[in-house]
């Protein structure tokens, strides 16, 4: 119980630290603005070309909007929040203050991780909620809204890969810019090679690294609803493999970060 209290204190601290950074708030605003723009463009296309744009799926416009924002911006916010989580404390010299108190390094790591991740979850909820409202406003009554909480959870789970990668780089290299840059490079690279990986999966049914990071929410929704203009065809195998890949990446990244923190000195400035 005492350990939980200390972890929750660090979680609260991490929220305040992350929100004090204007870049995180700016990214949230940009994401909402992007989603609004997507909805406006989708609506204009819908108005000009009629049902040809979303076909019969305009009732699932909210799913389309959420997935557009999730595939890039939520991952980017995850990278930015996690990228500074550990390293900024070393760079600013503030790690000393907390780690010279009666708190274990594992509690510190868990508090930092969970604090950042809960903040990301709130961002995910905000984005999902905003998209549902925008879709209702632009496209009228929406279908399958009972799955909105599930889609939100899928988005949060899918963001684990880049959140954990960025968190690991942040602790291993103890440099915020480097951590964000590395994780962002992997995100961009995975987006570029994603069609190739999708093709390889199609012919071999074998999942490849990072392939699942942004596709998991789409796979989940395609199991729940039929919206061929928005979602891929249902494939329970792909969904399971995506879930597994995310879990493996997240666990390995956290273990590497924990090993680094537990076995090395608390540095005051980046080496």
């Amino acid at each position: 119980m005492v350990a939980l209290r200390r972890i929750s204190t660090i979680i609260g601290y991490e929220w305040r630290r992350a929100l004090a950074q204007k870049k995180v708030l700016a990214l949230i605003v940009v994401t909402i603005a992007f989603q609004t723009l997507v909805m406006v463009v989708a609506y204009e296309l819908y108005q000009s070309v009629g049902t040809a744009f979303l076909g019969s799926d305009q009732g699932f416009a909210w799913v389309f909007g959420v997935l557009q924002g999730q595939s890039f911006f939520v991952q980017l916010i995850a990278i930015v929040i996690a990228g500074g989580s550990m390293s900024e404390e070393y760079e600013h010299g503030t790690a000393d203050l907390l780690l010279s108190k009666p708190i274990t390094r594992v509690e510190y790591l868990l508090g930092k991780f969970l604090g950042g991740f809960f903040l990301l979850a709130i961002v995910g909820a905000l984005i999902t909620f905003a998209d549902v409202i925008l879709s209702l406003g632009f496209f009228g009554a929406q279908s399958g809204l009972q799955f909105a909480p599930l889609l939100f959870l899928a988005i949060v789970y899918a963001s684990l890969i880049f959140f954990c990668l960025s968190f690991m780089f942040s602790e291993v290299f103890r440099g915020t810019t480097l951590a964000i840059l590395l994780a962002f490079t992997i995100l961009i690279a995975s987006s570029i090679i994603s069609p190739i990986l999708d093709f390889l999966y199609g012919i071999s049914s074998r999942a490849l690294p990072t392939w699942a990071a942004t596709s998991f929410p789409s796979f989940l929704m395609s199991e729940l609803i039929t919206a061929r203009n928005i979602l891929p065809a249902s494939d329970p195998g792909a969904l399971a493999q995506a879930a597994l890949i995310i879990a493996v990446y997240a666990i390995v990244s956290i273990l590497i970060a924990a090993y680094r923190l537990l076995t090395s000195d608390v540095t005051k400035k980046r080496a």
Partner: protein
Amino acid sequence: MAGLASHSVLSVSNLTKYYGNFKALDSVSFTVDEGCVYGYLGPNGAGKTTTIRIMLGLLKPNQGEVQIAGANPSKDPVQALRSVGYAAELPVLQAFFTAEQLLDLMGRVFGLSSQTRRDKVDSLLDLVGLKEWAKKKIGRYSKGMVQRLSVAVALINDPVVLIMDEPTIGMDPEATAHFRTLFTNLSKEGKTIFISSHLLDEVERICTHVGMINKGKIVFNGPINQVLEGFTQRWVVEAELEKVTENIVTSLKALDSVNDVRVEENKLTIELREKKDVRGEISSEIFKQQGVLLSLNLHKITLEDAYLQALKGGQ
């Protein structure tokens, strides 16, 4: 000194630390008894901050260990650090917090109740003279104010052991005097205080024990009166002359009672072989060489002298 007790609350044994190939600490050992005010002295880069950071579990030693209240801070930080307060040298505190918020957070880490935290925050901000700045962001504070807040943070848990790395650096003279009184009062309350400082005058005034470190090695460790006594084997006479000539220096060096003579402009520092007042002999020798003596003082040893001699001996 009130509260001096026989058992140690802080024990450092055989501590060795490498940064790459550089040996920052070389088998450093000392103990600090309950109620002591221990001054940790050494030049820049001697290993003072490294020792303190190992004591707090921030650095991992290559060899040796630290025990605070019977626990090793590297292995059991919760047990070892629950009764420790720490103020860092030129601390960096979270700029986005106000002083109130930071102290409240630290109180939470120590598991203080909300009422205790409120009371503590108010009284500590008053104690360090930051009450009017309580609701302002730390990012707007001067270095001296951050230093003062750092001392308040160190006292939030009413610590048994207070570890301070250059606690008055960056403070104005008034604040320095205030904090010296504060540390003296805290030691009278029975708190064990470990101070790393360059300010020998400060250490001499408030410390009961001294540890001196140079190039990662302890060169002296013991009660402050012992260090002063230990380094007064050679007394020093300081003479100011109208003009110092080669003849005067040579003739003084030739005296049996004189060990060495150092010249600095028109001043002579004459190191004696024994604890004996030979000012008469020295003045007559100077007159004999037609020197005009302006002043002649038998110099009492200060901590600074002892410190410099200890460093010289340790090299």
